[in-house]
């Protein structure tokens, strides 16, 4: 809170204006000459290469947002700081001002909208099923009586639970401690299927010893809009971020960025993820919006 007050005081003096507010992120960025981006260490949309280097589709997109903010604020130089976040601490760190903009793999849902604001959806995640290629499983109906793994601390567990009740299936559910652990359970035969975000499944398969042994099958179990998260009640900052996203969609640079991170070989192993742009993501780019997950219908 003290930091906030300090930022406020500096902003007020620097701008010479009484209009600056404590929740004014743009003023904070302008006065401090820096922006703090929340990034992920290992996720489908952002990850680290070590040594404080953060890359990925969403990470690079947020750097471009920072560029646009710099132009808008007329700053000669804008220092970009990176703060790695986890699923557990991302909301509090955005709320308390440690991070100005979090572009990781955060699902925009109603529960989180109570705590934070979301920019326009830039990626629509589809929850899919990965199985061993020779397992004969083709969809959720084949999972009756099977063991299914998902990762602790993800929304896929809820998806699984809902499907279980809707389809009257009985299956055994196990939870991996992280995605690598969950994938290991599928690989070692402890689980028959791994239910998770399509991008995470594709990334894990591409990194496995024999990618051809696995495939993603069946219907889309749930659709989740992924968006950058920021503090609530800061309309000017949200508009600036949204404008930058619309700019990136309009001039095709976001599509290029997608191609770079999902269709081309990427570091550190120079392996392709190979996940073409989904119809749902394309739709979200054509009609920029910040609707929560609850507004999406599973087709």
């Amino acid at each position: 809170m003290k930091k906030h007050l300090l930022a406020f005081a500096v902003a007020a003096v620097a701008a010479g204006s009484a209009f600056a507010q404590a929740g004014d992120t743009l003023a904070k960025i302008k006065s401090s000459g820096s922006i703090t981006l929340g990034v992920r260490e290992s996720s489908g949309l952002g990850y680290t290469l070590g040594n404080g280097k953060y890359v990925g589709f969403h990470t690079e997109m947020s750097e471009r947002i920072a560029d646009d903010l710099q132009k808008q604020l007329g700053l000669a130089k804008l220092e970009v700081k990176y703060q790695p976040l986890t699923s557990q601490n991302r909301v509090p760190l955005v709320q308390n001002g440690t991070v100005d903009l979090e572009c990781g793999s955060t699902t925009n849902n109603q529960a989180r909208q109570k705590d934070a604001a979301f920019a326009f959806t830039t990626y629509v995640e589809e929850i899919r099923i990965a199985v061993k290629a020779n397992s004969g499983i083709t969809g959720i109906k084949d999972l009756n009586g099977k063991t299914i793994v998902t990762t602790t601390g993800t929304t896929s567990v809820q998806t699984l639970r809902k499907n279980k009740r809707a389809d009257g299936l009985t299956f055994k559910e196990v939870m991996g401690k992280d995605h690598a652990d969950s994938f290991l359970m599928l690989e070692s035969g402890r689980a028959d299927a791994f239910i998770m975000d399509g991008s995470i499944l594709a990334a894990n398969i591409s990194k496995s010893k024999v990618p051809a042994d696995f495939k993603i099958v069946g219907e889309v179990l749930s659709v989740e809009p992924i968006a950058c998260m920021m503090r609530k009640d800061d309309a000017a900052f949200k508009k600036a971020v949204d404008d930058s996203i619309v700019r990136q969609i309009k001039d095709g640079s976001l599509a290029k960025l997608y191609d770079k991170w999902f269709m081309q070989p990427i570091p550190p192993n120079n392996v392709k993820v190979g996940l073409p742009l989904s119809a749902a993501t394309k739709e979200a780019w054509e009609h920029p919006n910040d609707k929560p997950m609850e507004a999406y219908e599973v087709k």
Partner: protein
Amino acid sequence: MNWDWQVFCEDTIERQVVQGCFGKNGDITYLDWLMSAWGWTVSVSLCALVIALIVGSIIGTLRTLPDRPWTVRFGNAWVELFRNVPLLVQIFLWYHVVPAIFPVLKQVPGFLLVVLALGFFTSARIAEQLRAGIQALPRGQRYAGMALGFTTFQYYRYVLLPMAYRIIIPPLTSEAMNIFKNSSVAFAVSVAELTLFAMQAQEETSRGIEVYLAVTGLYMISAFVINRIMAFIEKKSRIPGFITAGGSGGH
């Protein structure tokens, strides 16, 4: 800080607040889930504690046997093996590596593996304490037992162990409490215990602070109950005039 303790009364599918906080007709609320998670934590801990006490007692005793160099070496090897490898690594060895060597173990549920891993890990520590307890006894006690014509088994059973156990009750209390706290590693092999509940429920509800506070409270209660049970045992097993009562300091 605005609290939202109602979150525990929500059902886990639609997230609607349920009357009475406990789910009906097969639906479960976060409170139901929390209680079941607590049950798993307590089950893992108590089962592991039983294994740790039995195995730890055997290994600890073996390490003090006279004129049995190979038995002593076996005991030493056991202790060094299980206390030098981090617990989480041991869990993964049991879950992913050992079944790769013996495929029959793939059918063994994670619960059993984690009980074995936690039990053996703690057994090494208890064995070390028991050895220290036995060696703390005056040598004359062993000789007195032998002079009475007891066999090795008999003088351990009737003379050495009853005294050694009384000496090591305080560190044993710590181990019993540690087992509850260490049981949190069970989440790594998908046992639905408190830590797994905390990570999952906070993600689903976005009410991390309430969830972690509740889980912390349950860990503290569990560890404290075992602490009180051990304190009761310590009090009841005390022999007046032999081992001074705890807390009275040195004389």
